């Protein structure tokens, strides 16, 4: 086992790789398939080395055929395997969306409970690397609309490692969105890491003045922002949503009831993103707790541009988070 008694320094990428490796060691039914996962070592080097360790059958390169290999993963799951299907990035997942929505998400209900689909689909998500419009989508929140799937967004090494294990144990389709910019994030994987729950949001930083609800790449940005805000005497609480479907309403509402002021930070496009749904739930469940209307910092509603300054302006940033919080806690009405 690659797990140890000591916490280990590594990157988020390494943690995801360890998660895959340990899952494959534990269960012979687990296999990884996707474009360039084997001989190339994974587009983001996540699976580097795994081909040598597990062989071509279980670390399986696929042709560029997103619909067929995702569908094949669904079929393999029905057939008793525990496939981890990697779609290189969520931008290409649109090609497999029919299989995801019309098959994976629907099969159990539509078959009256007979055919559950224990597939895990991993994909990279997000912008920030100047990859332009067709390679910078953040679609995780949008996927959260689909009943029948679960949507995970790990943003810590522990989750990068542990969510996969839990997802593989889950009898239903689980989508894991790994933000591209997090792969290089360094941290410590706890000793003897294991599965983590995939049902709760987590308070990553306590604070009484304002709640920041966020996930993924916006989590570290939000944490950085709170340090700055602390200097100004603003104590912000940061909730890492972790799971976008099903949302953990209880943790969200608890924090709302504590701070009465809420900012949602989401790298997805604003209209109809996960930020909208959270707004609606707070409206429905905690309206009378609010001192101010909930605010959002999201991606601008544009295909994300290549130029650095434009891309920067299009995405949530530490500065925009700070400004939004300052505005929320200022004494005047919005």
């Amino acid at each position, binding site marked *: 086992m690659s797990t140890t008694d000591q916490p280990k320094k590594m990157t988020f990428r390494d943690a995801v790789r360890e998660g895959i490796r340990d899952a494959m060691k534990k269960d012979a039914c687990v296999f990884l398939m996707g474009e360039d996962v084997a001989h190339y070592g994974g587009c983001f080097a996540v699976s580097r080395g795994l081909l040598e360790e597990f062989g071509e059958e279980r670390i399986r390169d696929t042709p560029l055929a997103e619909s*067929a290999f995702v569908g094949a993963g669904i079929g393999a799951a029905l057939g008793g395997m525990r496939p981890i299907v990697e779609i290189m990035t969520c931008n290409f997942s649109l090609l497999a969306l029919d299989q995801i929505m019309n098959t994976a998400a629907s099969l159990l209900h539509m078959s009256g409970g007979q055919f559950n689909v224990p597939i895990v689909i991993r994909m990279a998500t997000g912008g920030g690397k100047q990859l332009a419009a067709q390679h910078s989508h953040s679609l995780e929140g949008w996927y959260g609309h689909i009943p029948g799937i679960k949507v995970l967004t790990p943003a810590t090494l522990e989750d990068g490692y542990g969510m996969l294990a839990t997802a593989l144990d889950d009898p239903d389709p689980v989508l894991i969105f790994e933000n591209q910019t997090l792969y290089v994030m360094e941290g410590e994987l706890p000793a003897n890491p294991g599965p983590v729950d995939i049902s709760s949001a987590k308070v990553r930083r306590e604070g009484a003045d304002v709640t920041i609800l966020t996930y993924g790449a916006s989590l570290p940005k939000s944490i950085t922002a709170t340090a700055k805000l602390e200097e100004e005497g603003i104590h912000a609480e940061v909730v890492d949503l972790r799971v976008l479907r099903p949302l953990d309403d209880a943790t969200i509402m608890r924090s709302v009831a504590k701070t009465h002021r809420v900012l949602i930070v989401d790298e997805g496009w604003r209209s109809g993103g996960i930020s909208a749904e959270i707004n609606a739930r707070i409206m429905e469940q905690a309206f009378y707790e609010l001192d101010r209307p909930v605010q959002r910092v999201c991606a601008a509603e544009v295909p994300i541009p290549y130029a650095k300054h434009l891309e920067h302006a299009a995405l949530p940033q530490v500065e925009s988070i700070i400004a939004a919080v300052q505005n929320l806690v200022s004494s005047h009405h919005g």
Partner: protein
Amino acid sequence: MSTPLPDHDQARRLLWQMVRIRRFEEKCVEMYSAQKIRGFMHLYIGEEAVATGVIDQLLPEDAIVATYREHGQALVRGVSANSIMAEMYGKVEGCARGRGGSMHLFDAKTRFCGGNAIVGGGLPLAIGLALADKMQNRKAVTVCFFGEGAVAEGEFHETLNLAGLWQLPVLFVCENNLYAMGTALRYTESKMEIASKGDGYGVANAVVDGMDVLAVNEAARKAIATTREGKPFLLECRTYRFRAHSMFDAEIYRSRDEVAEWKKRDPITMFFDAMKAAKVLSDSDLEAIETEVAKEVDESVAFAEAGTWEPVSDLTRFVYSEVTAS
């Protein structure tokens, strides 16, 4: 009929299955008119020889992936007429608790993996099932039924390539009935030969007269022998649907003459006449089958009528599994 004569048992079984499909679906039409069945309902009448001939060759461990035109496949596979009729009534005793209806028959026991209403949607599923069998060293095969209309979809291409590349035990059965809804094959395929498209993927293939149950049965036997050895196969069955595409089709796209012409090659009549001429079957066999089937069909209606409605409070059950992760 150039295939060897079957023995009495085999002939009777094939005839029986085809008659079951025919009579069952005729009853479905009646029940549709009586508004007991609703939604889309696609009939297999005219195409019975295909499902019958192919599925007859399967073993219990094999899997089936079908389309929205799958009453025939389900019946031949052994999904009970009762549970299918109840499904179409929308009753909880249906093979999908009444949630799927005509287009979504499911039965885990017989590895009947549905009923899929997305054209081409079942193809990737089939190779996945086959991949699972292969990786777990099981000798099972997966049979995937689809119409000739599905051949134009990208998923056909992606799937056949993977099947050929990974040498997966799948039998692809194309039910070429010449029309995709109201669009004739000549409007949708630059090359109208379906079977030989397998060549482009290194997938062995054959064409068979889909109105001739013996020919289909024999072609399926050979194809499955290949498949069970771990090689994919594409079998094109040339057939015709005698009825409209679904219950909502005015059939303005084909002539009555064309339909009449094809009906002369009714798979049931043709087969029975040939077997009778060859003295393998007699009129009394057919009569017995008709009686037996009539009883089965009537019972299925009674069963469906007596069925119950799933409580509305169960609506959200099975969006996710009830067994939680261990």
